[in-house]
């Protein structure tokens, strides 16, 4: 696998974030926060009749992108910030670019900027990743 600084990572698309997946996720996470499963609560917060995606679930779309690009055992580090929320029915695309390629302890590591792009142009999640390609 040949990678250079500035390369674009093939994107990963989630055409409609699904509320039922948030509910399953809430059960697995034992997450009591109703913003992930009760749209009446979210409506009172001003986000409309929706539920709010769990932060890790949004991050997982970028993991899926990295897996398809660099392999299922490639991820070494993920650093993620969450400037905005992702809601059910959002059209989301995981994207990224290569910022550095370096050798460390016999491995070739690739540093990347990664983010989620919503169809309205917002980037609700933004962060960095390091993957191993050798």
């Amino acid at each position, binding site marked *: 696998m040949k990678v250079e600084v500035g390369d674009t990572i093939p994107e990963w698309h989630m055409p409609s974030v699904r509320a039922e*997946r948030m509910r*399953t996720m809430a059960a*697995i*996470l034992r997450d009591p*926060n109703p913003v992930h499963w009760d749209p009446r609560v979210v409506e009172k917060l001003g986000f409309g009749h929706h539920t709010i995606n769990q932060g890790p679930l949004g991050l997982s779309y970028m993991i899926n992108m990295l897996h398809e690009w660099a392999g299922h055992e490639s991820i070494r580090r993920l*650093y*993620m*910030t969450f400037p905005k929320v992702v809601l059910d029915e959002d059209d989301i695309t995981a994207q990224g670019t290569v910022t550095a390629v370096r050798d460390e302890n016999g491995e070739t590591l690739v540093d990347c900027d990664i983010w989620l792009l919503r169809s309205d142009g917002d980037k609700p999640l933004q962060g960095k990743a390091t993957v191993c390609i050798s």
Partner: protein
Amino acid sequence: MTQSSLPDESEIRALVGHEFPGGRYTIAHWENFLLTECTGAPPLPGDLAHPVALFHMPILGAQTSIGEMFALGQAESDFSIGIESYDWEFFAPMREELEYDVTGRITSAERREEDGRTFDRIQFQFDLHEPDNRHAARTTITWHYRRNLT
């Protein structure tokens, strides 16, 4: 959960060094299957666990919960928590049906004022070790406990 009064700053600072009981956690096959399905990906090959498991399994393995972490910082409500960042380090691929040893602690807790808003910034760190004591992963969760929202 409601906590209407501003907790004393010394109570927040005193959280640094808090250790969770710790324990063991095994990602069951069914759990990994459903978790991976939630991400929109097909099942991973072999016994690989989806890396997104690095959010919940350290928390549960360390014998705590999201609810307890909210309560430790005296969150005003479930809606008062903001995520600053998640920092996940993988030293080995995570696998289902493998028993991990999990430890966790609070590494930072401080009050901050930004743009006229008060919040307490609390950082949790969890470590996972495989049965042979190999360090498998570390996760650092940094949350903001926003104050005086009501």
